[in-house]
């Protein structure tokens, strides 16, 4: 039953990514978010390639494993590139913050790298299936880094009250869903992955697959949401404050 559901979700996910990829191109979103568009197209292509390999009787398990590993490696690199794309888009309207922001972003990445390497070193994989446990350990490491960068992104923009375009929020949220659900499932599976698949592994796989589907739905929904203008509604500054500030300024100019 779980395996069947997982297969259905896989087809749905592949269809959604394909539809999203086409929508991004037809709406010219690829100009504003080239890396994100490339990622979605990559995921769509991954589905188109992996599904036939999985079901075709003439393909081997090794061929599937190579295609799967290539897909996931590319997707991982692209996810980090998306976060950088979001960050640079966010800083674009704020020239005063560009240099300092990029520098802080790099330092935050270095700090997070140290943390995730230490985590992988001190809490290694411990599942019965050695290969799969190491795979989930790598996924856990990547997802901790992604979660950390997303937290940094929101905290940084929150501190400077940066204005987000609606679709940037959607992209970040979708990535957040992928990274957090991936982190939760990979953390458990890196420790308990059995030699042969059991129900726990199936449930984890299903949760992970649902996260991919849910992220695609978030991105599609945000693509059709109207752009909300940021900033306060036009209101005059309080008169008393302006007057006092004016007095302060007069005093300053006459010094």
């Amino acid at each position, binding site marked *: 039953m779980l395996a069947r559901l997982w297969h259905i979700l896989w087809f749905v996910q592949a269809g959604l990514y394909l539809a999203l990829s086409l929508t991004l191109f037809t709406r010219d979103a690829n100009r504003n978010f080239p890396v994100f568009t490339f990622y979605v197209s990559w995921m769509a292509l991954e589905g188109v390639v992996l599904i036939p390999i999985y079901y075709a009787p003439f393909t081997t398990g090794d061929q599937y494993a190579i295609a799967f590993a290539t897909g996931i490696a590319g997707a991982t690199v692209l996810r980090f590139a998306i976060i950088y794309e979001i960050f640079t888009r966010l800083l674009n309207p704020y020239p005063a913050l560009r240099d300092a922001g990029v520098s802080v972003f790099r330092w935050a990445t270095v700090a997070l790298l140290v943390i995730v390497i230490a985590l992988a070193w001190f809490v290694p994989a411990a599942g019965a299936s050695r290969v799969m446990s190491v795979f989930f350990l790598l996924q856990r490491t990547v997802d901790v880094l992604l979660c950390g960068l997303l937290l940094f992104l929101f905290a940084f923009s929150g501190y400077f009250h940066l204005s987000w375009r609606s679709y940037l929020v959607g992209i970040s949220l979708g990535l957040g869903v992928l990274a957090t659900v991936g982190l939760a499932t990979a953390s458990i599976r890196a420790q308990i992955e059995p030699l042969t698949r059991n129900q726990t592994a199936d449930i984890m796989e299903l949760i992970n697959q649902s996260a991919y589907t849910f992220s695609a739905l978030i991105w599609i929904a945000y693509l059709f949401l109207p752009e909300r203008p940021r900033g306060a509604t036009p*209101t005059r500054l309080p008169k008393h404050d302006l007057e006092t500030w004016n007095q302060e300024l007069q005093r300053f100019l006459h010094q």
Partner: protein
Amino acid sequence: MTISIILVIFAVFTLLWLIRRAKGQYLTTKLEDHPARQIRLVDVEAFRNLVDPAEEEYLRIQLPPAVFRKIQRRRLRAAIDYVSCAARNAALLLNIAEAARRSSDPATVATAERLIDNAIRLRLYALRVIPRLYIAMLLPMRGLTAVPFADRYEQVARQVILLGIRFPASPKF
């Protein structure tokens, strides 16, 4: 396994936090509706006095070391409050300037952009100044190097006045 449980909890809290922040970015919050009402006045002269190295030197000569340390810590605590308040005002002004940026008048847009630039610089500067002030609180005898924070705040205040004159507003206040 304990670390795995901690990571799962971390993942859940991260997701909830991201959802909350994403919701906050999309929906207008109450605070963002009336940012101008929340601006608090900063007495720039009082702040200058608190971080004036000459004033500090005078107190150091006049007071016994123990009393000077106590007084200096209180002065620096007050200076931190001033910087925090100015940084908070800058954040609120960012919201106002962001709205003014959408104006049809190019002069208003230019003023708003300058205000955004300076408000951001002020908050960046606050990030650097506050740790310095805390270190000075821990080592009050070391002496404080000049903190040109007040000048930056006054620059922002000047632009607020300019924006206040130019920005056509609805009679909400």
